[in-house]
C-alpha cells in the first residue's frame, strides 16, 4: 500500500466503498434480471396450457371459447419474445401480473405473505445463530468428551428433516405438555415451534462451521496474549473468539436464508402459517405461473438484499475486509 497520510487513506477507502456499492447494485440488478429471464423461459417448458390453468386447472371442463378468450386477455397469443419484453416492462413498474388461480395481483398477494415468511426466517436465523454459538462455545476447548458430544449434536441436528422435527416438537410441546399451539395463529406463542423447527438443523450447520473457526481462533497467540493481561476465560470468549468464530457464519448467512426459505415451504405447511413457501407450493400444484415467477423473483430480491447485508455485516465484524477494499 502506498504510504500516505491517514486522511488520504480514508478518502481512498471511501472512494472504494462507493465503487463497491455501485458494483453491488449493478450485480443485484443483473441477478434479478437473470432470474426473471431464466424463470420466464424455464416456465415455458412446463407441460400444459397456461390458459387451462387460468380456467381452474385441467380438472375443469372449460370450453374452447373460454380458452381463446383467456389467451387474448392474458396476451398468451403473442409471440414468446413479445411476451418476454412485456413481462420485463411490467416488472420495471413493479407489476408481477395477476395470479391465474386467485385472479388477484401477484404483488398484493405476495406482499401479504412476505412479511410472515421473512419474520419466520429472520427469527429462525437469529435463533440458529444463538444455538450454534452457544453449542460451539460450550463444547470447544473442554476436552474430548464435550467436543465429541458437541460434534455429534451438530451433525444430528443438521441431519434432522424439518417435517420430522416439527412432528416431534408438536407431539411433545403441544400435545404432551400443552405449552405451545401446534398451529401458528399469528400469536407470538404460535411462532415458537416453527422457528425452532427451522432453526435447529441450521444451527447444526452453523455450529460446525463456528467450531472450526473457534478452534482456530483459540489457537491464535492473541488469545494467550489476552490471558496474559489478566483476561478471564469468559472474557477471552466474549471479547475475542466469538467474533472470530462468527465471521464464516456471517458470510454463510446469505446462503442460510435461502436454506431457511426452502425449509419454510415445509414448515409453513405443517404449522399452517401463511407465507411464501406455502404459496409457492400451492402455486406449483395449480401451475399458477405468475405466482411461481413472483415468488422466485421475490426470493431472489430477498437473497440479493441479504447478500448486501451479510457483506455489510462481515465488513463491520471484520475490519480486515474494509481494508481490502482499499487494495
Amino acid at each position, binding site marked *: 500500500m502506498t504510504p500516505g497520510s491517514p486522511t488520504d487513506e480514508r478518502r481512498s477507502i471511501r472512494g472504494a466503498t462507493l465503487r463497491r456499492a455501485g458494483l453491488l447494485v449493478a450485480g443485484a440488478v443483473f441477478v434479478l434480471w437473470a432470474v426473471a429471464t431464466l424463470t420466464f423461459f424455464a416456465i415455458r417448458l412446463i407441460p400444459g396450457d397456461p390458459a387451462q390453468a387460468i380456467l381452474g386447472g385441467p380438472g375443469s371442463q372449460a370450453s374452447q371459447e373460454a380458452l381463446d378468450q383467456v389467451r387474448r386477455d392474458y396476451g398468451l397469443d403473442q409471440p414468446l419474445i413479445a411476451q418476454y419484453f412485456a413481462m420485463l416492462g411490467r416488472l420495471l413498474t413493479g407489476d408481477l401480473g395477476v395470479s391465474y388461480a386467485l385472479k388477484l395481483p401477484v404483488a398484493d398477494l405476495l406482499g401479504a405473505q412476505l412479511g410472515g415468511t421473512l419474520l419466520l426466517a429472520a427469527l429462525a436465523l437469529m435463533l440458529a445463530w444463538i444455538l450454534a454459538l452457544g453449542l460451539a462455545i460450550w463444547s470447544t476447548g473442554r476436552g474430548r468428551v464435550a467436543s465429541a458430544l458437541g460434534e455429534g449434536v451438530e451433525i444430528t441436528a443438521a441431519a434432522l428433516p424439518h417435517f420430522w422435527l416439527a412432528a416431534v416438537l408438536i407431539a411433545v410441546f403441544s400435545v404432551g405438555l400443552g405449552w405451545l399451539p401446534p398451529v401458528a395463529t399469528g400469536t407470538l406463542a404460535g411462532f415458537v415451534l416453527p422457528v425452532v423447527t427451522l432453526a435447529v438443523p441450521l444451527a447444526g450447520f452453523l455450529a460446525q462451521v463456528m467450531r472450526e473457526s473457534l478452534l482456530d481462533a483459540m489457537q491464535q497467540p492473541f488469545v494467550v496474549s489476552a490471558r*496474559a*493481561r489478566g483476561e478471564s476465560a469468559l472474557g477471552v470468549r466474549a471479547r475475542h473468539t466469538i467474533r472470530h468464530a462468527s465471521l464464516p457464519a456471517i458470510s454463510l448467512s446469505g446462503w442460510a436464508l435461502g436454506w431457511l426459505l426452502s425449509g419454510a415451504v415445509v414448515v409453513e405447511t405443517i404449522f399452517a402459517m401463511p407465507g411464501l413457501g406455502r404459496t409457492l407450493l400451492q402455486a406449483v400444484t395449480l401451475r399458477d405461473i405468475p405466482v411461481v415467477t413472483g415468488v422466485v423473483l421475490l426470493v431472489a430480491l430477498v437473497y440479493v438484499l441479504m447478500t448486501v447485508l451479510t457483506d455489510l455485516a462481515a465488513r463491520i465484524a471484520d475490519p480486515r475486509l474494509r481494508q481490502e477494499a482499499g487494495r
Partner: protein
Amino acid sequence: MNTEEAPVLDVSRLRVAFDGIEVVHGVDLTISPGECVAIVGESGSGKSVTARALLGLAGAHSQATAERLHIDGLDLRAAGEREWRAVRGRRAGLILQDALGSLDPLRTVGREIDDPLRIHLRLSAAERSARVLELLADVGMPDPAFAVGRRSGELSGGLRQRALIAAAIALDPPLLIADEPTTALDVTVQARILALLDEIRGRGTGVLLISHDLAVVSRMADRILVMREGRIIEQGPTRTVLESPQEDYTKALIAAVPAQSPRGARLSMTPEQPAIIATTAVPTPPAAASAAEAAPLLELAHLTKTFAVPGGRFTAVDDVSLSLRRGETLGLVGESGSGKTTVARLALALTAPDRGTVRFDGGQWSELAERDRRPKRHRIGAIYQDPLASFDPRWKVGRLIADAANGAATNGAARPDAARPVVAELLEQVGLAASVADRRPLTLSGGQRQRVAIARALAASPELLICDEPVSALDVTIQAQILDLLDELQRQRGLALLFISHDLGVVAHMADRVAVMQAGRVVESGAADEVFARPEHPYTARLVADSPRLPR
C-alpha cells in the same frame, strides 16, 4: 544492577510437561528489579514454554510444577485461576513470541492496550483512554491518537510490537517477560525495540528476555542463561558467557553469528558431522576474482515493476539494474517492502517487468514466450523462506526430489523408482539420510525442510540459484548449517547465487557483492566488504549500525 533487592521473579526447579512428556526439566531463575536476564537457546529448547509457565499459561494439557514460584513476592505455586488473573498484566507483563498474531486482528490497538486497565483498575473510560494514549507515546508510537483506532492488520511489524509492549507495561508491572520480541523485524526496527526495552528496564522493571540469537541479547542482558533441551546448561554474566563459554553448545551459538565470520568460513560448529562436501568436492576459490572477466549469467537491466493500487499504481521495483556472474554470490538487502522479492520474481520470470529486461546466459529471458522459456527454466532454481509452502502437501520428500530431477531431463514422468538412487544422492549432498525420502515434509524440522528444498533445487542442475530469505525463519544454529551448505554447494557446483535477506550479517557473510534496496531502488552496490566497511548511502550506514553483533 542490584541483586540485594527482593527479586521480582524467583523460581526454582520449574518443570513443565505436556501429556506427561516433560519438556522443561527443572529450571531455576531469579530476576531482580531493574535487571535484564536473557534466555538463549535453539528452537524447541523450551524457552517459550518456560516463559508462559511463569504466568500459568503453559497451555492445554500441560502440567507445570515448581519448588518455588514467586512473582513480586507472591507465592503462586497453588494459585487458582483468580489469583493468576490478578498477577497477569498487573505484576507481570508478557510479550508473546508471535508479534504478528498477538494482537486480535478484529480489535483496535487502543482496546487491546485498554484491556489490562479495564481488568485490573477502576478507572473511568476517559481516564483509561488518556492513559492508553500516554502509553502509546511512551513506547514511541508515532501519532498515538491515530494509532489507537488502528487494528493490527493496519500496522507494520514494528508498530505492532510497540503496541504489544504498551499493553504489557500498561500497569507498570515489576516484571516484563519478552519472548523473541524482535524476531521477524527489520534490523532498524529491531534496534529500536531493544532500545525501548532497555529504557523500561532502566525504570526498574525486571526483564526476562528470550531469544535464540546471542547477538541480539548481548546488548541488553545483565545475565545470560543458555537453555538446551529443557535445561539451563550454562549461565553467568553476559560478558563471562560470551568471552569464555564453557559448553560446546554455547560456543556453537556464538560462532553461528554470521556477521562475525568472514566469507567462506564455516559457521556451524559440528565437527562430528561429516563435512558434507569437503570430502567429495574440489574446493574452488571464491568465484568473484576468476569470473570477473566472464560474461554475466544473469542481467537485470532497468527493471521497473508497478502494481495497481486504488487511486493509481505503486512502483515496487524502480529502475533496478543488477548483474551476476557464474560462481558469484550477489546479496540483496533492504528493509521489508523494499522490493527484494519482486526482483527475485522478475528474475525468475514469474512476473513480467513493466520496463526493462532480464537476460539469462547471454540470451533473452524475460522477453521469451513462456513456451520457449519452459525448457530452460530448470537452469534457474529457487529457494524460499517458507520451504513447506513450496512443497505439494501430498508428496513425500522422495517424490518431490525425483519429480524435479526427472523433469530436468525429460519434462516428463520417469518411473519414480528409477530416481531413487538420484534422490538418495541429492539427500546425502544436503546432509540428510536417505530415509528422509519416505517422510512427509510436514514431519520435518525447519532446517531439514530447507535442506530438502535445496536438494530439490539442485535436482534440476541449475546454474543459478535464487534464494529469497532462505534462512530468516530458522534459528541461528540451523541457519549456520544452511549457510554453510549453500556455501559448499556453490563451490562444488560453481553455482551463481542471488541471495536475498534483510539480515545484513547473513548477507555480509555470504555475498561477494551486495546491492542495497530501499523503496524499490538500488541505493548502493559494490563489493560486500567495501559496502559494509564503508557504507556511502546514509540508508546503508543506518542498516550497518543497527545490525546486531557480539561485543568484541
